């Protein structure tokens, strides 16, 4: 049942170029009354069900507050209809009608009466209001003696204790200290659970995401999106980031080639190079200057940085970048001679003065051959792993003796707009793995540690894998089985009774090890050659007692559901569960505690989920040992 029904609402404001407010002005300057109709809302329609919480977001002036005001009937739409069932209370203005000379108690009556409460109703709520505001001691003091925080607390307490079926809130939750805010949200949640419908207007996307079920994004009077709040917030943030990026890009299209101020780097071991007043266009003159100075260890100015150019992924010169896109920093220089004795460096600093990243060609053992005349050297990265913010670029050139020839501190400031919601400066590449995948097989706490190991091991190379196998062979249980990988028959280690295999399963040359657990195989399971199913291996890094300590309650079984396809040469280490229609690619090793869900495709060493069946490795008969780094990376990209 929808409580709020908004149908095709339009609203216009008259914008007067120069409105005559008084009679004289109106009579004398009749022509001035020109006005323009500006449509602030164009066809907004939505409906909100009882107990739902709706958020309205948008830029300043997009019309979201106007929408709310129309819902409270402060304004009326020019076209369309709004109908709300039940008592509406709006928290648009706090402390309305407060009189500074009256006591807190009297003001509660005044303020609550403005929300349409009768005296009886207020009497009934008075205690709740006072206790919510935490102002028991001060309630009979005049409001003018209150601090602003107390004032807002009182005001909010009144507003929030007005029983309503529909609560409309405009950007007012930024009141009081953190504790009081938390209290307010808790109260709102309580109201929510009581079935109060809440409409919230705010800029704070975080609030919308955490508090609202649904959200509407209004842009320039039009409804851009009406969906689940997280989706809307994402779209809105992306839009805002893109907009900011475009703004910055258009502002900063021309990188200032101004003379950057040249600074000196304090160098502990070597006398500081005198580098005053670098005139990059006239290196000879500079050289002259240098020579005239009395400093020791003066480096002749045969090399100078003329300018630094930053380019984005499209090769455009700019100072605004999207987080994650590529960036190239071209250091243009002018050299007086051919030489390979130069060391170029860049550093990125935060405005607070922390170096985030710095490197030099020398540190990376690169020899830069510079030929006489103008040229440039380019530093580039495919992925600018910085979060939104401003960053300072330092560039430097030095001789190999590590004397600085030129150190351009704060050469320029560039801005990064990142769509990541992470905080800080550096956008670390990462992923999260949820332990729920393994429910039923492994306890969560144990699982977390295993996952960490696995994440680290995604980079396994051929030799790493061999080592892993060697290590595994030290395990008394696995040792025997490894030796039999190349056998051509089905071999069963341990008791055959522990194998439950359906008749339709097709297993060729498979090795079953049931020494420490059961193996169950469902219908129409198809296995390629040389598949090994080894129960109870746990973690191959753990041996003996350690393992028992680590997974005291873990089952050891391997459960393979109907229709699973196991590629040739794959190895499944229990405990694990492979659900219906899943695929394990040839040559993969499924580590213990893996839970492969229905239809998923796992590949690699160790086996990781890949997106779809086409990612499965083909034609690797001996895939387990042919597994190459590039494939591994390909898989990783899909994860």
């Amino acid at each position, binding site marked *: 049942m929808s409580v709020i029904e908004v149908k095709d609402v339009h609203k216009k*404001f*008259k914008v007067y170029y120069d409105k005559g*407010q*008084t*009679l004289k002005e109106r009579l004398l300057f009749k022509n001035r009354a020109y006005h323009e109709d500006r449509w602030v809302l164009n066809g907004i329609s939505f409906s909100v069900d009882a107990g739902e919480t709706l958020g309205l977001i948008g830029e300043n002036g997009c019309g979201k507050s106007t929408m709310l*005001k129309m819902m*409270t*009937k*402060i*304004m*009326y739409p020019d076209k369309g209809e709004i109908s709300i069932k039940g008592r*509406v209370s*709006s928290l*648009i*203005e706090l402390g*309305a*009608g407060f*009189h500074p*000379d*009256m006591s807190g108690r009297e003001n509660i*009556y*005044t303020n*609550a*009466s*403005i*929300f*349409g*409460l*009768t*005296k009886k109703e*207020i009497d009934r709520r008075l205690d709740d209001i006072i206790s919510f505001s935490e102002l028991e001691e001060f309630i009979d003091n005049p409001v003018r003696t209150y601090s602003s925080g107390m004032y807002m607390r009182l005001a909010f307490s009144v507003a929030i204790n007005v029983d309503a079926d529909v609560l409309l809130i405009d950007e007012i939750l930024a009141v009081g200290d953190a504790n009081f805010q938390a209290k307010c949200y808790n109260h709102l949640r309580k109201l929510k659970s009581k079935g109060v419908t809440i409409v919230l207007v705010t800029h704070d996307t975080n609030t919308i995401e955490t508090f609202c079920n649904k959200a509407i994004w209004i842009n320039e009077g039009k409804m851009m999106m009406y969906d689940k709040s997280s989706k809307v917030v994402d779209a809105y943030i992306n839009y805002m980031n893109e907009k900011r990026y475009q703004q910055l890009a258009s502002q900063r299209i021309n990188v200032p080639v101004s003379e950057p101020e040249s600074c000196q780097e304090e160098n502990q071991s070597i006398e500081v190079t005198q580098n005053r007043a670098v005139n990059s266009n006239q290196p000879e003159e500079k050289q002259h200057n240098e020579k005239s100075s009395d400093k020791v260890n003066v480096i002749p100015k045969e090399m100078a940085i003329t300018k630094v150019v930053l380019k984005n992924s499209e090769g455009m010169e700019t100072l605004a970048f999207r987080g994650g896109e590529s960036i190239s920093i071209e250091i243009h220089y002018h050299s007086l001679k051919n030489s390979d004795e130069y060391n170029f460096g860049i550093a990125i600093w935060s405005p607070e003065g922390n170096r985030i990243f710095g490197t030099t060609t020398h540190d990376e053992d690169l020899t830069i051959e510079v030929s006489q005349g103008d040229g440039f050297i380019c530093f580039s990265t495919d992925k600018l792993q910085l979060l939104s913010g401003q960053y300072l670029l330092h560039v430097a050139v030095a001789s190999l003796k590590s004397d600085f020839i030129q150190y351009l501190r704060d050469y320029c400031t560039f801005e990064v707009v990142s769509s990541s919601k992470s905080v800080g400066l550096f956008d670390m590449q990462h992923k999260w793995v949820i332990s729920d995948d393994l429910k039923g097989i492994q306890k969560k706490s144990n699982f977390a540690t295993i996952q960490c190991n696995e994440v680290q091991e995604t980079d396994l190379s051929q030799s790493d894998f061999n080592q892993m196998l060697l290590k595994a062979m030290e395990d008394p249980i696995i040792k025997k089985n490894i030796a039999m990988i190349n056998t051509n028959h089905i071999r069963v280690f341990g008791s055959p009774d522990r194998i439950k295999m359906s008749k339709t399963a097709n297993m060729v040359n498979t090795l079953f090890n049931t020494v420490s657990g059961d193996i169950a195989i469902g219908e129409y399971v198809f296995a390629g050659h040389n598949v090994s199913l080894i129960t109870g291996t746990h973690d191959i890094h753990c041996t003996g007692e350690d393992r028992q300590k680590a997974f005291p309650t873990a089952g050891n079984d391997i459960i393979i559901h109907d229709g699973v396809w196991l590629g040739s040469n794959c190895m499944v280490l229990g405990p694990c569960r492979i659900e219906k229609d899943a695929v394990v690619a040839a040559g993969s090793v499924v580590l213990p505690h893996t839970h492969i869900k229905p239809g998923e495709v796992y590949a690699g060493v160790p086996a990781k989920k890949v997106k779809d069946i086409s990612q499965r490795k083909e034609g690797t008969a001996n895939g387990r040992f042919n597994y190459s780094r590039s494939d591994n990376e390909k898989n990783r990209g899909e994860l």
Partner: protein
Amino acid sequence: MKILKEIFDYRQMIYSLVRKDLRGRYKGSVLGFLWTFVNPLLQLVVYTVVFSTILRAGIDKYYLFLFVALVPWIFFQSSITGGSSSILSQKDLVKKIYFPREVIPISYVTSCFVNMLLTFIIIFIVVIISGVQLNFLGVLCLPIVMLVEYILALGFAMIVSAVTVYFRDLEHILGILTMAWLYLTPIMYSIDMVPENFRHLFIINPMTPIITAYRDVLYYGQVPHINTLLNGFILGVVSLIVGFLVFGRLKRHFAEEL
């Protein structure tokens, strides 16, 4: 009708606003609420001095003659002039919160009305001291007269308060208009002094019957004519209906205009 019910639901708000207005009016002054009584008393002293020693009007007990008419007039005048800016002065409320907008002029006029009632305590004391023989039935009619005046003042206040939002000059124009109105109403003089051929113009003036009725009761000590009462009542109701209609039409765009 719906609007009347809504206003009734918001009665506590009217009460709060009136109380706030009355209490806030003399807040901080030494005499405080006493000013409500001191003010008319001092006025009375001035009239007595001026009209019984300097400017003799030739009317018996002229100070009383003037006083019983002037107090109701001041209520009416302040309802209109103050009422016209009442919406503007509650701008913040109107822009931010929903409530029936009628509440603002109603509470303003009511607060003026309460003020007048308090002044009537002084009037009664003065009337009794000056030895006027009050007619019992006449005194019973007084609340009716007051109610009629209240309705009339409310009707006018609603019109001017709504119009002032769109046309701010009205506030100042009203200053002049009410002054003219004061002289065109038999307050400083009696209706008998008006030349015969102008008298019908005075009948249109809704304040004429009201002032006449007050004076009948408090100065002459008689029951007001039923015609006078009826005349005032009809004009009052008409002004109230017109007031509600105009206000209802104009209130939709208050928030945008303020």
